[in-house]
């Protein structure tokens, strides 16, 4: 299964979930639509277009069954970086209000600067401290962004 088919199948599945959810919300009638009316039709369109896309991919695969290398989303080695950055951002979101802006941002910057292009550790450390402090001063002290204080208390 290549990525085109997978994505169409995923969208078909998603449209089923939305269709089910919309009917539970109440569709109403065309003259008096309920809360589920618009998402229902949105999902119906999604289903039709994804199903068509799936069929088109299937038939073009039958045509080009020979010599068509199957493409994968993960064909580049760079995808690992994306996953690392994604996980670091999710962790940042979870910890942001608990341990505060300064510590969270400092660790995020160390991580990002290391993952994107590894340099000497003291360069990364200095850059991370500078970025964190400058952004704190500009946005918290200057523009009163209202960052969470966290464990440091400021």
């Amino acid at each position, binding site marked *: 299964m290549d990525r085109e088919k997978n994505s169409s199948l995923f969208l078909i599945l998603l449209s089923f979930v939305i269709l089910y959810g919309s009917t539970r919300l109440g569709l109403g009638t065309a003259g008096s639509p309920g809360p589920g009316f618009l998402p229902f039709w949105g999902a119906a*369109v999604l289903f039709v277009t994804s199903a068509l896309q799936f069929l088109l991919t299937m038939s073009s695969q039958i045509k080009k069954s020979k010599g068509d290398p199957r493409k994968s989303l993960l064909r580049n080695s760079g995808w690992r970086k994306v996953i690392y950055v994604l996980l670091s951002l999710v962790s940042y979101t979870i910890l942001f209000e608990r341990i505060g802006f300064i510590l969270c941002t400092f660790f995020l910057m160390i991580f990002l600067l290391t993952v994107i292009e590894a340099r000497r550790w003291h360069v990364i450390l200095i850059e991370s401290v500078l970025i964190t402090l400058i952004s704190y001063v500009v946005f918290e002290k200057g523009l009163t962004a209202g960052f969470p204080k966290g464990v440091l208390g400021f």
Partner: protein
Amino acid sequence: MDLLTTISSGFAVAIQPINLFYCFIGVFIGTLIGVLPGIGPVGTMSLLLPVTFHAPTTSTLILLAGIYYGSMYGGSTTSILVNVPGEAASVVTCLDGYQMRLKGRAGPALGIAAFGSFIAGTLSVIGLMILAPPLADAALRFGPPEYFSLMIMGLMILFLLASGSVLKAISMGALGIVFATIGQDPVMGTPRFTFHIQELLDGVGLVPLVMGLYGISEVFLNIEKTIIPKVSKVPIKGLLPNLKDWRDSIGPILRGTGIGFILGILPGAGGIVSTFASYAVEKKLSKYPERFGTGIIEGVAGPESANNAATGGAFIPLLALGIPCNVVMAMLLGALMIHGVRPSPLLMSEHPDMVWGLVASMYVGNGMLLLLNLPLIGIWVQILKIPPRMLFPFIILFCIIGVYSINTRAFDIGLMIFFGFLGYIIRKLNYEAAPLVLAFILTPILETNFRQSLIQSKGSLLVFIERPISAVCLGLSAAVLLSASLPWLKKRFFFKGDLDSMR
């Protein structure tokens, strides 16, 4: 008010110090991000949107518009100097611009790109001033049914003019509709797809969605495979094109302006399409078409003028009808809504200072861009040397701070990361984010007008057909859909042609 009065009142607004400042910042940032490959005007506008919450509405619009047309100027610099288009709309400029640089004529190429952009940008603003008011006057007769049908027509044209697969564009539009319905139902207040999450009761915010889809996903895509442009150390001399250059370029500039302006009005990727159209027209009209691609000035002058003229054209549907014809205009519409201004045909009559101030600022901004882009070209070239390892953490940090500062809640950061990853996946799968964003912005307007129309008509759907303007819009929507489907259906079922032709 006649045209002269409105223009002078617009200039009175545009030359206020605060608006001049915002205009300068806008065109400066626009040029900057145009030069830097990786982050586009939409990503930048989404980044700056939270910063503008406390700014006056007119200044916000001036800033955001400046980023848009400024990026069109900046995009040509990297195309000519390093063969890497800073913007999608500058791809065509690489063909002859880079060849000119290889021949040692980078100066005239950059010069004509800047002058052409200035002429096209200014002429398109004049076109905008002439065309928008009568269109807005006509649109004053619009009620909820007309608005609903107009939104449907806008969505149809938009999907069908998508730069990639039409099916995929419609899928993304449908997904945008679904995302827009998350939150409370506008009539009954019933929670829809909130999964008992308190924060979702207000719906998905525009800023986390756009910042995720354009800012964060851009970083994901770029860290996967980073392109570091090689910057030439050869100094650029002679930015002013000579008389022959002008003779060769003036026709392409004027034709590019016309093509760009008209295509810019149409929904879809006006700026990008217009550059290709202009290049094709110039090649067709040329006495020596075989020389295109070898470094001739017409190949730079036409497309660069077209992409700038398209920016002026793109404002017409937004200012006259309240409908965005591309994702950048959708961002401006979002900014208007955040500032409490309801986009509608009444925009010009209810907020003349804002609209004409914005339009006049575009004249001022085009002048600033000419000054910024020619004498400071050396600085823009140096900017290409900023290492991505510094750039991307900054973009992520700005996105986080920007999205958090709106409601001061970490949930919005999570939402932005979700949309960032979604944007990354959909772009890897050759889906486009633009139809999703546009449908997301248009759906609440569409739903409200649909419900209001039905309340007015006591539940009769005939209201959409009985009213002439609405019927024409729906008829045109059907015609657009048919015109795109018929060739494909013919090929598919009568000639058994290529299945990919629906792309």
